[in-house]
């Protein structure tokens, strides 16, 4: 089930009342739906105004809170001239590359692991405790160990992110596999499908909506691990940029970096929802 496929009572008319509706299910005029977004927009504007006011009235020292204008100016400067030897675009691409390499690794490992958990008791016995062990550990806790084992190069950084992504991918795949309708599998078997064909042609496509949800969660988890991954011996990346700026108390770059990370996370979420709509148009419609 994808939440995006849900729309607020498609057939409902504004003045419709069937006499059975409880108050909270009564169709509301369309205005009410729009105003939730309006409230969000107003909230953001108010916060921006408060930020501008606080900064221009010098309520807080610019060292702690640079003004929005200063952050924007810094954005333009870093985008053009760079910060710590790389432009904003180069930092962003370095981070995106790490996150996507980690995502590929997490898919290559996590989907088969999830499949094994979902279809075989032995698979569940082997991998379930491992994932449950791995899942709650914060990346900063295993980062030192990974550096001891794999050094300070690029593979270590990707690995830190990939570990954070593994559990959501594997567990969502397993949930999707376990949710496959029994009848669908039986129908395929009675049409002559072998065990491998059932997995390839029925179980994987059935689990695809759930797998994509897992990827969405994993991208969020991986992106939020970025700063930890770029903590040691990075020369590029948004996380590295923020840390370098923090060490020199360049607060406007810190704030700008945080905003860029947030905006990219938002964009990734948006893109993967689009991908979901294209790849699994049947989700929520069965």
């Amino acid at each position, binding site marked *: 089930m994808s939440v995006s496929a849900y729309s607020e009572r498609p057939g409902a008319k504004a003045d419709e009342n069937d006499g059975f509706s409880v108050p909270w299910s009564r169709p509301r005029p369309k205005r009410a739906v729009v105003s939730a977004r309006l409230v969000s927009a107003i909230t953001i504007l108010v916060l921006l105004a408060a930020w501008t006011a606080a900064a221009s009235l010098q309520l807080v020292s610019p060292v702690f809170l640079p003004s929005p204008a200063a952050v924007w100016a810094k954005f333009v400067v870093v985008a053009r001239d760079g910060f710590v030897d790389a432009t904003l675009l180069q930092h962003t691409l370095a981070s995106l590359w790490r996150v996507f390499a980690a995502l590929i690794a997490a898919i290559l490992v996590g989907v088969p692991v999830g499949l094994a958990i979902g279809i075989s008791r032995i698979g569940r016995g082997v991998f379930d405790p491992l994932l449950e062990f791995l899942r709650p550990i914060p990346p900063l806790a295993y980062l030192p160990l990974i550096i001891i084992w794999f050094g300070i190069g690029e593979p270590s950084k990707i690995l830190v992110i990939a570990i954070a992504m593994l559990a959501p991918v594997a567990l969502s795949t397993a949930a999707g596999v376990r949710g496959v*309708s029994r009848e669908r599998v*039986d*129908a395929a078997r009675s*049409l002559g499908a072998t065990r491998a064909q059932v997995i390839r042609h*029925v179980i994987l496509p059935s689990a695809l909506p759930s797998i994509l949800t897992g990827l969405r969660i994993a991208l969020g988890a991986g992106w939020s691990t970025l700063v930890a991954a770029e903590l040691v011996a990075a020369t590029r990346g948004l996380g590295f940029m923020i840390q370098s700026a923090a060490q020199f108390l360049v607060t406007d770059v810190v704030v700008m970096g945080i905003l860029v990370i947030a905006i990219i996370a938002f964009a990734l979420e948006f893109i993967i929802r689009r991908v979901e709509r294209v790849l699994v148009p049947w989700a929520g419609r069965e």
Partner: protein
Amino acid sequence: MTHLILDKVSVHYDGQPAPAVERVSLDIGKSDSGRGDFVVLVGRSGCGKTSLLNVAAGLVEPAGGLATVDGRPITGPGSDRAVVFQNDALFPWLTARENVAFALRLRGVSADKRARRADELLSLVKLGDAGDKRIWELSGGMRQRVGLARALAAEPEFLLLDEPLGALDALTRERMQTTLLDLWAAAQVGVLMVTHGIEEALVLATRIVVLAPGPGHVVRTFETHFGRRYAAGEPIRAIKADPAFVAARAELTDAIFEGEAA
């Protein structure tokens, strides 16, 4: 003549105190020319109808007795016995045509060949122009037709229908009954069907087996001929209005509720 035979089959599910079915025998024949048997299982809930169908499908292993096709024991599901379920169990990531062609794809039939065959079968179930439709764009009746066409694509000797019309509205049901009779004639298969519909059983079956629960056993067997009259050209509504049909319906209803505490 090929036979799907259940010989004194018992079914006992793990963790259940009593067996679901005890020593039930069925024989579904499929003639090599012309139509085969159309055996319909009816009975109250819990009488083991679906368990028996699953044994025939090879999805449930009998606790006792033997299930065979043409003398060979049934060891698992196979495309000689295609199953159609109550909830169509179609694949929503495929179009209607691709669903029908599924069995052929498993066998490695080339893409254009299987598309052609799928379109033939879709026309047979009167969905000739729905090949490109997605499953969620189809009504319940249309989905069930796609399910039937998909089963026939496997070129089974026997069709196993588990309440195929159970989820449909009454009017669609009426229309699907004649579709089933037409398919049965066209595909030359033996049919084993489970249903709750008494009228449906009488219209379709060549033989009706009435089961009763506790554990599931056969209480009566009726040979019927109303389906053959439809095949001979008599309109379905005239058959259903025939006093002989009305009497048979009363008799069958009595048989189903026989022995039930009132």
